[in-house]
């Protein structure tokens, strides 16, 4: 690597250590931002473009391991280097298991710390380079499964892994998409194909960082969604079933059924503020209430 520029976030409650690291890393052409605790560090991460985090473990308020866990939620690919004291190998192992890029011991060997930071920068650049192409990728997956609900967990897992890899927001997937696919597949298997193991359910998935689209078709006689009693009606609250379709509409941005009732197309956008999404959400809610 020829270009060594980059911004390092140094987190340590010891002002002197921060100053020392700032001087050291600046001499190697790196920009340094200092935070004296974990909360300040998290604030810096949301306002600054950080390439590598170098954090102490023992800090009051939020220790370095907890800080690293918080950073991983915000920026999973950001290399975090943990500074531990001598004789605290167990903490170093814990940090590595939690996703730390590397660790270095205090008091520092200056050559070692510079080497590890530069390696972290290299990894960050590589990961940024790989991410450049993400907006242009669309992945198409297809499953053709027998009508058995036991396959649902694995299918969701595969779709989740691919979505994560392409940068579709994990939180959006786990909180909303997962339940909607679960319900749609369950409907096709149980109500569409009546769990006839000889009948198949076809799942076609388009995955991009911006959007997930699922087309789920069964070989049943057709399923009239409008015939389902409103499960939110006080009269129907004690009914055991009938909530799957409602949940699909609630958690996805767009739902389309074919006329025969054997196919459903579910769409979820990564950015929930798109106009397209708002329009379709309004339409979907309307059609469910009719």
């Amino acid at each position, binding site marked *: 690597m020829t270009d060594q520029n980059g911004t390092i976030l140094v987190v340590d409650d010891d002002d002197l250590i921060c100053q020392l690291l700032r001087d050291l890393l600046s001499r190697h052409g790196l920009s340094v931002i200092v935070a004296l605790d974990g909360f300040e560090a998290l604030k810096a991460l949301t306002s600054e473009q950080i390439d590598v985090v170098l954090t102490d473990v023992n800090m009051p308020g939020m220790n370095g391991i907890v800080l690293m866990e918080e950073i991983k939620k915000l920026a999973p690919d950001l290399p975090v280097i943990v500074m531990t004291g001598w004789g605290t190998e167990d903490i170093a192992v814990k940090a590595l298991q939690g996703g730390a890029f590397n660790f270095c011991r205090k008091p520092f060997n200056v050559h070692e710390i510079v080497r590890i930071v530069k390696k972290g920068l290299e990894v960050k650049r590589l990961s940024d380079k790989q991410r450049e192409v993400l907006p242009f990728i669309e992945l198409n997956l297809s499953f053709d499964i027998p009508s058995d*609900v*036991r396959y649902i967990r694995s299918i969701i897992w595969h779709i989740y892994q691919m979505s994560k890899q392409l940068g579709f927001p994990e939180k959006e997937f786990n909180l909303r998409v*997962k339940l909607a696919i679960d319900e749609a597949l*369950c409907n096709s298997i149980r109500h569409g194909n009546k769990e006839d193991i000889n009948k198949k359910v076809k799942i076609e998935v388009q995955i991009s960082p911006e959007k997930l689209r699922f087309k789920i078709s069964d070989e049943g006689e057709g399923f009239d969604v409008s015939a389902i009693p409103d499960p939110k009606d*006080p009269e129907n609250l*004690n009914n055991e079933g009938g909530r*799957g379709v409602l*949940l699909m509409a609630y958690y996805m941005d767009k739902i389309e059924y074919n006329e025969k009732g054997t196919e459903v197309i579910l769409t979820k956008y990564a950015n929930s503020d798109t106009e397209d999404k708002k329009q379709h959400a309004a339409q979907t809610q309307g059609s469910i209430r009719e």
Partner: protein
Amino acid sequence: MEIITKENIVSIVELNGELDNESAEELRINVEDLISNGKVNIILNFNELSYSNSAGLRELIALYKLANSKGGDLRLCSLQPQLEDLFSFTNLKKVFNIYPTEEDAVASFE
């Protein structure tokens, strides 16, 4: 899903993991077993439950009705935000007695 049952003034069932098509059946077997042994006042502790689909909700309603039919009750506690949202949106908060903590749920039976 892991299910742990504790005996108290009431039976407390701790649900761990996800409530879906497969684990809903496991829950039914456990709770039906309690009810058939006369333990009709049951608390389901959702503290470690991160997910439920409609098959899970269906099973909860069926078990709630079963406990009621035997003169008991099935109450819930410690819902995580995602499940709070699910119970609010489906109006199931109007069906179940839901408590913030296990202690509150136990106290409700006293």
